[in-house]
């Protein structure tokens, strides 16, 4: 649960970024130019719907979960203004049985809706590429492989932020090393799925006998962007393989460094997909080598800054841990409760219960 809360925390600024290019006319709104509607055949338009839905539904999910916690903060805060503001934010939460009952139903359904929504968002982003006829973009594995990549990079980004937050806020008792180990397992799993997808793409390009396809992939792995491909492969596929070893899975420095590696690797995955396929396309006269201008750098650094800014604001004023959810599992899952229960049961099951995870030594 804690992990889940922190994932929400880490991802919420990303939701905001989906709207940076928002302009009214990308939505199908009635207008005075005769019947002039958006083109529903365009994957870019699908993306508009996907990202705005994703943003607003994630916002609902995130905020509905925060309301009870704002209530908690309201009742603890001292000043009149703080009290007023946190009550405003909590929508006047009380915590009555009926409220909780509906809360449970709502969060269950919103979670159920958000799961396919996450899939759909990454799928539709991949459609932006895969519906085209550019070799290296047009491939059917893109949708699930983008989803796996998103989980992969998402976990890595959460780990990066979480490890810092955990240290600064002294959350070691909430976010334990077991959580980090589980996340690292997910990282090695999704990293390997992404790796298999890379290899599948390579293999099928080779197998297909389609000359353009073969050329695009030959260029990708051995062309002028060899360095980018090598960086992507080593960061995304090779480096997470360290997590097969328990020692590395449970080491915080290793986790932090590897999470940065994965962030870099996944950034380069996008770079490889976009740049290598476009640099040498069908038209030989337009073959070129991409080098970023100050505008590219500015947008890149700016987006990172916005992300971090929002995240830090969040961490400063909002609860970084879902208070109510942690309370709900405190009596069943906390180390203290487990120790109590194990004592009561006479430490049956070879003491497994006491230890929590079965294979923890």
């Amino acid at each position: 649960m804690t992990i889940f809360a922190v994932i929400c925390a880490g991802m919420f600024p990303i939701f905001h970024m989906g709207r940076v290019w928002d302009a009214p006319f990308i939505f199908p709104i009635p207008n005075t130019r005769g019947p002039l509607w958006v083109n529903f055949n365009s994957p870019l338009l699908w993306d508009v719907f996907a990202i705005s839905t994703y943003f607003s539904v994630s916002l609902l999910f995130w905020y509905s979960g925060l309301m009870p916690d704002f209530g908690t903060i309201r009742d603890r805060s001292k000043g009149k203004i703080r009290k007023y503001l946190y009550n405003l934010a909590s929508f006047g939460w009380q915590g009555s049985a009926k409220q909780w009952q509906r809360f449970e139903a709502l969060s269950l359904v919103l979670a159920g809706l958000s799961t396919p929504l996450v899939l759909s968002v990454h799928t539709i982003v991949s459609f932006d590429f895969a519906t085209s006829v550019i070799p290296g973009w047009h491939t059917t594995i893109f949708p699930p492989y983008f989803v796996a990549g998103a989980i992969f990079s998402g976990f890595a980004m959460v780990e990066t932020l979480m490890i810092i937050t955990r240290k600064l806020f002294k959350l070691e008792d909430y976010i334990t090393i077991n959580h980090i180990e589980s996340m690292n397992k997910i990282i090695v799993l999704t990293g390997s799925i992404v790796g298999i997808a890379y290899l599948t793409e390579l293999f099928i390009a080779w197998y297909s006998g389609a000359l353009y396809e073969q050329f695009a992939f030959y260029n990708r792995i051995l062309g002028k962007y060899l360095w980018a491909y090598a960086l992507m492969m080593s960061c995304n596929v090779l480096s997470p393989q360290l997590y097969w070893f328990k020692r590395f899975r449970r080491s915080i420095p290793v986790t932090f460094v590897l999470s940065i590696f994965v962030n870099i690797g996944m950034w380069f995955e996008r770079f490889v997909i976009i740049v290598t396929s476009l640099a040498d396309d069908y038209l030989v006269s337009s073959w070129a080598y991409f080098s970023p201008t100050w505008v590219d750098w500015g947008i890149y650094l700016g987006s990172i800054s916005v992300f971090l800014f929002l995240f830090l604001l969040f961490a400063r004023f909002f609860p970084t841990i879902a208070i109510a959810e942690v309370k709900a599992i405190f009596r069943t899952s906390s180390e203290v409760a487990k120790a109590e229960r194990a004592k009561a049961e006479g430490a049956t099951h070879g003491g497994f219960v006491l230890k929590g995870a079965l294979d923890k030594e």
Partner: protein
Amino acid sequence: MTNEKFEFTDSLKKNLYIMMGLGLLGLVWVFLGDHESNHHGRLWSNLLANSYYFTGIALFGMFVVSATQLAYGGWQTLMKRIFISMSAFARIGGFLLLLILAAGIADVHKLYEHVSHIMHTGHGDPKYSTKLVYFASWFWIGRVFVYALLWATFSIVFDRFFGEADQSSQAKYKKSKLLAAAFIVVFAVSESAVSWDMIMSLDPHWFSTLFGWYNFASYGCAAWATSILIIIYLKSKGYLNQVNENHVHDLGKMLFGFSIFWTYLWFSQFMLQWYANIPEDTNFWVKRFDEPYFKVTIFGALIVNFLFPLFFLIKRSAKRNFKMIGFGAALLIFGHYVDFFNYTFVEPNWNHEAMEHGHGAAVKSENVVMLAEAHATEAAHGAAATDAVKHEGHEASAAVEVKHGEHGVESKHGHEAPVKNFASIGIGEILVFIGFAGLFLFMFFSNLSKRNIVPEDDPYLKESEKLNVTWA
């Protein structure tokens, strides 16, 4: 009672023998009922589709055990050995595929004829240079042999390892994680590769990077459905008393989830190839949509495997009622059989000559047809729009008929129209399916009867017994 053994009664054995006998009858039926020009394509298509399908189900059994073992799953522990026993078929499944492939290479049947055609005529053509390597007979057979060997080995090792007593020792538990991880890695590679080697190679001109994962989702659904049916059967015979509607509910959720996942992959694969509309991709779909029969089976499979679970399995009550979920599971097993039917049965019945003579031209013309269909219908209906793929209006098909004829002549170099002798899902197919199901169940039950059904000392057993699904 946790220490009960399954008794493989004579009457059950007899029934399974009858099922297998019906399967043999079915093989004879499709062998005799086939058209001369089809080179026993129907017989071998039946063998291929069913071997592949049931091998997939068997492998998925091991996958479930591995995945839940790695994820600290506790809900499935009571049913763990059901999944282990389901994998018994993997001991022969891979070798059946090997046999079919060997027969194909030895020219006993013409399922892989396009490949052998490339192997004979493709030298010097850069388009085929990689295929000449990949489909070199010994390399090809060798790969399938390796998968078969790996699967059989894993099936035996899983059976030994999880069938033994003493599941609760720490050393054993640790080892089980390693075994599970090893299987996942082997499975991830081999399931994709075998889908390329056995199914995608039926049409070596077509390729889709998603194909392996798509196949995985399809027999995944079938495997969850199979486990549900088996559990309902075992319960009706008085076994597995601790398994109750909560466990079946969870299996139903997995079935529902995999059905949606399958649809997602189906749509992704189809939509991307439909949208880009390039000949390398669309030849696959044009072949299928050109035959009204396969058009029906493809959209039929989509309805059964997507809309049905979406509206039926989403309900809590449906997942907790053994009769309803049993019906749903049986229907989905059939639905995913039809899915594989769509992949394996089209190719042998597609006119080989049309494909062989200048593959590029033939395929291109098909693509043009697809486009032409869209334009023709637009012209015919004016502003009223139609769907190139779905529309079946009379004017439209008439227009397409004309276009098809024109291009057909061009591409087939004077050959006669395709032999309309495609297999349908007839009595023969159903009998062969029953036969394979009988074989699968026979191996399942004889494996199950070797030891206690429930792993009585598994550390997660208590968690499984207490399972209570309160939501959804």
